[in-house]
């Protein structure tokens, strides 16, 4: 059913799903009044379907950050590779970044398409035990822009939760876009009943990034999502020719570690900048497998272990 409203909601709108829809003070004079009044009330009818679909997933993880480009997708892909290295686990990775999906490229499956069957959409399998889903698989070509308003994005997110046939999974890792808006609200609302195990927050050391990350932490508290920990990415850079270390993004206000302390959340460690991480993401290969000796690999695996301890 199309529930899109013809005009923007007024400021004090109770929301079309509220019992008061069409009846509150703000509804008087609003062009949406009649539509809101006639819409079905109460909880979303699709919720039971989502709950049923995701019932066989043991752990659900969100990867969040208020800031863009800090390494959410990189971390999601690393986390997926690292978990999938254990052949006894079944892993799923879901990309909720609708306008800028980068997970398929990082996992090396960008040219795949989604197949649908009686049981729903089949995820694209990157390995024997690693499946993934992204809007990228549905685009006519790689460069097509998804110029969608929030309500349309919500619809797709709901479909991802409702229609993807993951089968039995041990972990579902969910990559999110930057910010605190529609995608974040939708995924936390739809999965509320099932319960999300928690969120991993990614940041970089400089205050401009921490500023946005504080907002994301505030969002998690408001939305009731448990924060499993904070990881600082791009912490330092070791010059490959002289071995000297430099701070590219200076932690002038104490970086991730101080923020974690200040907010009372777990600090899971810092991952240094290694140019090879970017390269292996561009080519869709696992950095962890290619360079098992790199200090960055060690740091990432430490974070993954700390996360698993926190969850299990």
């Amino acid at each position, binding site marked *: 059913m199309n529930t899109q409203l013809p005009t923007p909601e007024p400021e004090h709108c109770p929301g079309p799903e509220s019992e008061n829809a069409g009846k509150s003070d703000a509804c008087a004079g609003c062009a949406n009044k009649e539509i809101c009044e006639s819409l079905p009330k109460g909880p979303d009818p699709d919720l039971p379907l989502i709950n049923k679909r995701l019932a066989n997933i043991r752990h659900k993880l969100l990867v969040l950050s208020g800031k863009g480009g800090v390494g959410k997708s990189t971390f999601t892909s690393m986390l997926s590779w690292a978990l999938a290295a254990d052949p006894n686990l079944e892993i799923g990775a879901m990309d909720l970044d609708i306008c*800028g999906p980068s997970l398929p490229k990082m996992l090396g499956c960008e040219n795949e398409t989604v197949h649908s069957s009686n049981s729903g959409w089949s995820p694209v399998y990157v390995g024997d035990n690693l499946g993934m889903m992204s809007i990228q698989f549905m685009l006519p070509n790689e*460069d097509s822009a998804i110029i969608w308003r929030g309500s349309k994005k919500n619809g797709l997110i709901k479909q991802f939760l409702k229609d993807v046939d993951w089968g039995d999974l041990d972990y579902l890792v969910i990559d999110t*876009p930057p*910010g605190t*808006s529609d995608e974040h609200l939708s995924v936390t609302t739809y999965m509320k009943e099932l319960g999300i195990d928690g969120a991993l927050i990614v940041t970089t050391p400089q205050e401009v990034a921490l500023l946005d990350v504080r907002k994301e932490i505030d*969002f998690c508290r408001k939305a009731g999502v448990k924060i499993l920990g904070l990881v600082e990415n791009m912490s330092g850079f070791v010059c490959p020719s002289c071995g000297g270390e430099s701070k590219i993004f200076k932690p*002038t206000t104490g970086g991730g570690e101080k923020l974690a302390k200040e907010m009372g959340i777990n600090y899971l460690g810092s991952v240094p900048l290694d140019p090879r991480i970017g390269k292996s993401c561009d080519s869709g290969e696992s950095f962890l497998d290619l360079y098992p000796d790199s200090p960055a690999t060690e740091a990432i695996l430490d974070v993954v272990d700390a996360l698993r301890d926190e969850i299990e």
Partner: protein
Amino acid sequence: MLDNIDHIVLVLSGKGGVGKSSVTTQLALTLVRLGYKVGVLDIDLTGPSMPRMFGLEHGKIHQSSKGWVPVYYDDSKRLSVMSLGFLLGDRGNSVVWRGPKKTAMIRQFIKDVEWEDLDYLLIDTPPGTSDEHIAIAEELRYCKNVDGAVVVTTPQLVSVNDVKKEINFCEKVNFKVLGIVENMSGFVCPHCDECTNIFSSGGGEALATNLKLPFLGSVPIDPTFNELIEMQLEWKDRGSLIDQYGKSALSTIFAQMGEKLGWAKLT
């Protein structure tokens, strides 16, 4: 509405964290150094960084009979900034808004801000191609003074792919792409002066050649610029951000970019 502004330039990128805000900041500083009167509008509602970039985090928006008064950098009124960051009670507060509310806020920014006479209005945007972008495109649809958009990318493929989507968006809404900036292109090690391409290199230029768009230049990673931004309040005695930026190596690169964009020095 926006009639007393000569040029409007948007700064866009499909990807987050590529340096839209730092490019916007530097373009604004470059314009001010050339003698123009500049306004900066920050439509990144859930992650506004413009107040921090200009050291204006304590700025407040005032209401006048004509509308909202933006925050001025100093008494000379050469540089003014409008951002949702100024309207939040606490800097850690999150703005958890769905699309329609964001659209309404942007409409208000366009309709209610009293910019006075500006030579340039720079608009900093959030990543993606969604509500904020649709809203600003709708608001600017009939404005004759929109020059177009500067598109920012970093050299990696992952970023270039998202940026292609943004260029696709520009075509659909008739924003002229003024040029592509490649940010974070290489890092010069302060210990040995060896340049390392942390996020590979050449992606932005190749993209520009491919799509036959002007390439405005590549900007290396310069930790001193980040430091300048982060420490500007402590370093007030060394001069204003505008003067200090003039001494930075990056200002030369942006001055050349300005030339390519046809920004001449005012006499």
